[in-house]
């Protein structure tokens, strides 16, 4: 009887989001989310007495999902207040990643993401949320939904040539991205890595324009430089922003770009060899001071950035010139 009343109350709360005719279908209520494949559209996940209506698995460029359905990440509605949430169920995954032919060990850690969520609560440059254990002690993360595009898509949608972009829009974009680097510096200072820094792991929040990092559950087994991979990610995003997209060797070649005659091996990305990092050779109006920063991520680099602080120090000097 108690269950029936609870279900009746859930149905009332959920009716707004359920299709007509759902009235007769009994709810499936999950308090143990171990089998995340079994948590489906229209189900209820009850976390600590709070009911969430499951909509569908997250995919398509949100939370870095790139078309692939992630069955452990669900779009949901908090039925107590109608807010849209992302619910990340526990998925322990270990695998070998390959970047530019280099193999390294990666894994997902719900604990890491939960810790970082606590650390960055209220920080404008991160996604927000909290973690809660289900009845089988699975550490589920409940995230506020961010309305906005990934930075990569935001940039692709800008309708201007590179020179106009560089002088009109890029300065503001760089300032926002520097805020993102400071945000990464903040978590590094607390001994945490982001773990998966990519251009589509920054969302441009439509409500306030803030750039916000998402997805902290990814981790890699670091070797000597604990934050080296994060710094590499920041460098890649920076080069992407300066170039208004990837500047690829094969594209320049196809277009018969005049820069082809001056580009050297050392002008390429140190890991992704088909990407050009020495962008001044393609866009000569890029100031030397900024281009020099990009070259730290090139094959010809004499010195690598060891910390976010070093990168920020150089970037902070750039706009003043």
């Amino acid at each position: 009887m108690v269950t029936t009343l609870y279900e009746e109350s859930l149905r009332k709360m959920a009716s707004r989001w359920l299709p007509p005719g759902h009235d007769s279908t009994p709810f499936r209520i999950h308090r143990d989310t171990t089998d995340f494949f079994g948590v489906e559209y229209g189900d209820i996940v009850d976390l600590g007495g709070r009911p969430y209506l499951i909509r569908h698995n997250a995919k398509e460029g949100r939370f870095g999902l790139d078309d692939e359905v992630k069955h452990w990440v669900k779009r949901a509605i908090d039925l107590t207040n109608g807010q849209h949430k992302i619910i990340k169920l526990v998925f322990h995954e270990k695998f070998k990643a390959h970047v530019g032919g280099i193999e390294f060990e990666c894994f997902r850690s719900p604990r890491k993401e939960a810790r970082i969520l606590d650390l960055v609560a209220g920080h404008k440059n991160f996604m927000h949320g909290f973690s809660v254990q289900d009845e089988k002690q699975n550490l589920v993360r409940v995230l506020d939904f961010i309305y906005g595009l990934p930075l990569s898509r935001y940039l692709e949608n800008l309708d201007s040539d590179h020179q106009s972009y560089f002088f009109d829009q890029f300065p503001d974009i760089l300032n926002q991205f520097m805020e993102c680097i400071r945000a990464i510096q903040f978590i590094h200072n607390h001994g945490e890595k982001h773990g998966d820094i990519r251009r589509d792991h920054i969302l441009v929040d439509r409500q306030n324009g803030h750039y916000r990092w998402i997805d902290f559950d990814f981790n890699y087994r670091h070797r000597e430089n604990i934050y080296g991979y994060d710094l590499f990610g920041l460098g890649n995003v920076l080069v992407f922003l300066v170039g208004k997209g990837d500047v690829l060797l094969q594209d320049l070649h196809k277009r018969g770009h005049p820069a082809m005659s001056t580009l050297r091996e050392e002008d390429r990305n140190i890991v992704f060899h088909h990407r050009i990092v020495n962008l001044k050779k393609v866009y000569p109006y890029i100031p030397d001071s900024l281009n020099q920063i990009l070259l730290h991520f090139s094959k010809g680099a004499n010195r690598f950035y060891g910390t976010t602080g070093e990168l920020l120090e150089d970037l902070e000097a750039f706009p003043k010139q």
Partner: protein
Amino acid sequence: MTDGEKVFNKNILIAVDDSENARRAVSYVAQLLGGVGGFKVTILHVIPEAEEDYFSSSTERDEWLNQYKQKMRAVLEDCRQILIGAGFAPEDVSVRSPLRYCPSMAECILSERDELEYDTIVLGRQGLSRSEEFLFGSVSSKIVTHARNCTVWVVE
């Protein structure tokens, strides 16, 4: 010897892991100094505290750590026998494998050196590509850069 000149002790710290490069570093010391006498060698492997995040449970982590310790005990003993076989007195060769929180292996090795007062550190070069060094850093490069008051031999 001139006044004020630093007097180097004959304590050598060989930092190893389970790689061939580390074994080469041990063989180098064995060939160079085996039978010479007067040198004391410690073979060091710092066991990094297992990252909690990597494991789904503390049981899984403990199992991993036990297996790792067992593997490294065998590696250290193997290195010790290389040195003894080359003429080092058994009492002059010790092994050490402390468990430490180790965000940087190089810093942990240097810190061990400071605590134990060795004037020479020996280690094998990992042979990383520039890309790998860029992404993940190099223990030997960092030790060469940051070591103070000691000599570093990096064995190729």
